[in-house]
């Protein structure tokens, strides 16, 4: 674990250099432990693939105090019991008007649409991080056969529920938003409900399988 500053009121903790589930699980444990303390001096915790960013309240603590506290707790964190991961099935309509980039993914991979769908829907994905916008799951790991680069120029808008690919990740646009990922389908499932806790359907560590409909 490598601690560094991020601006005046951020602590950035790096756990590894690659996208892998093992590293991500260590981060998940760290994040859930920290969250369980409900510390008033922590404003937000943003766990992701290989790091965790802590936004702290500089009126209540300092970088040095927070880091020395976290270092003291490293042993306790290692033995912290995390809840079981949850599993979800997400129905997806692939291709056609719902998947404007399906054609690209087919030609890039040299596969036909049926094969792309079959490959995309046969992996059980892990949610590595949730963010950029509320409820958007960054999921992995995509089968290398359907690897696709990001769009050179992002689209200004894709509809809510759009299912996309980028490199070895897949994700679902929880709201209409600008998008640089290749869109291959759409789900009608609501991923984020701002009126009901815990708001986000998917959380870090959850497992997701897509069901073609």
């Amino acid at each position, binding site marked *: 674990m490598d601690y*560094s*500053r*991020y*601006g*005046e*009121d*951020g602590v*950035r903790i790096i756990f590894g250099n*690659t*996208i892998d589930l093992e590293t991500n699980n260590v981060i998940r444990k760290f*994040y859930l432990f920290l*969250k369980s303390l409900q510390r008033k001096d922590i*404003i*937000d*915790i*943003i*766990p*992701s*693939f*290989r*790091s*965790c*960013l802590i*936004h702290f309240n*500089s009126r209540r603590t300092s970088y040095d105090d927070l880091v020395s506290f976290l270092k003291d707790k490293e042993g306790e964190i290692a033995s912290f019991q995390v809840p079981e991961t949850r599993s979800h099935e997400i129905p997806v309509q692939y291709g056609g008007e719902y998947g404007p980039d399906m054609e690209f993914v087919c030609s890039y991979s040299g596969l036909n649409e049926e094969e792309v769908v079959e490959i995309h829907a046969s992996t059980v994905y892990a949610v590595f*991080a*949730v*963010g*950029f*916008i*509320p*409820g*958007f799951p*960054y999921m992995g790991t995509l089968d290398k056969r359907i690897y696709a680069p990001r769009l050179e120029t992002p689209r200004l808008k894709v509809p809510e529920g759009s299912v996309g690919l980028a490199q070895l990740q897949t994700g679902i646009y*929880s*709201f*209409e*938003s600008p998008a640089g990922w290749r869109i291959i389908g759409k789900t009608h499932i609501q991923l*984020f409900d*701002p*009126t009901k806790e*815990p*708001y*986000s359907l998917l*959380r*870090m560590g959850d497992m997701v399988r897509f069901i073609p409909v």
Partner: protein
Amino acid sequence: MIEVVSPAWFSIVVDGGRYGYADVGVPGSAALDQFAYNLLNYLVGNETGAPVLEVMGNDFCVRLNAEMTCAITGAQVTAYLDDRPITPWVSFTAHKGSTLRVKEVLEGFRYYVGFSGLMEVDRIIRSFSTNLECRFGGFRGRPLIKGDRIALKDPKVIGERFVPEEVVLSLDPPHVLRIIEGPESHFFTPGTINRLFEKKEHSWYIVSSKSNRIGIRLEGKPLIFKKGVDKSIISEGILPGTVQVPGDGLPILMLYERTIGGYARLGMVAKVDHDRLAHLKPKDRVLFQLIGIDEAERLWRQKVEMFYRTLPQ
């Protein structure tokens, strides 16, 4: 009740920000000029965290259907209560049925309008702020339009309060933004970094008209990545003020709408200059100045002290 006669170019409900759920991607969506926002609530005698209006553009107009104290902060504007000129940063009392009009923005970009009493708007995930992309919070999750009526709970009249002129900063360009080094500053060539912080003509950037509440895009000489570095990073958490540089080399100053980013982070705008970001308007000139973290913290402490000195208790 407050009735929107003209929403100017763009007006939304904001507050101190939506915090605590960044782990599921919920951004702060805070008032961009927090100094102006906080002092506005002081001027109208509202509690910290009360909702206010954040407005851009000329010709903002509301009708006030109750007697109440109001104030305007943020950008320098010319404003009138009926026919009487109003001084920004000083509270004033409006009679029932009067009309508050902001005619023109003279300096800066966003101004804040507040009323004594609690605007009855949507409080979603612990905040009144409008999340425009997700359409929640504030006034039905959207910008105000002509004819909107916002109920005001317990409108009241309080004694005049003011903010001393000397604490109100000049908002004229060029904007000199102080920057703390970011995690990927080493992705760029030493030459490009030197040029950026030299404060010469070739160091300027211009605010792009493609800027929005998510980020301020800058136009100018592209920053040059070192040979062989990956231009994107494994996506990870970011905080407001992060200076992201996509593959095209043109910096984007991230505001309060994103929790995770995937571009190289050249630096972070020092907190002391965050409020100024609210006032960067298209075509403004921007310069960067590199400072250390200790200096950034010292400047921030100084600003906080000034804020508390402004309040008379």
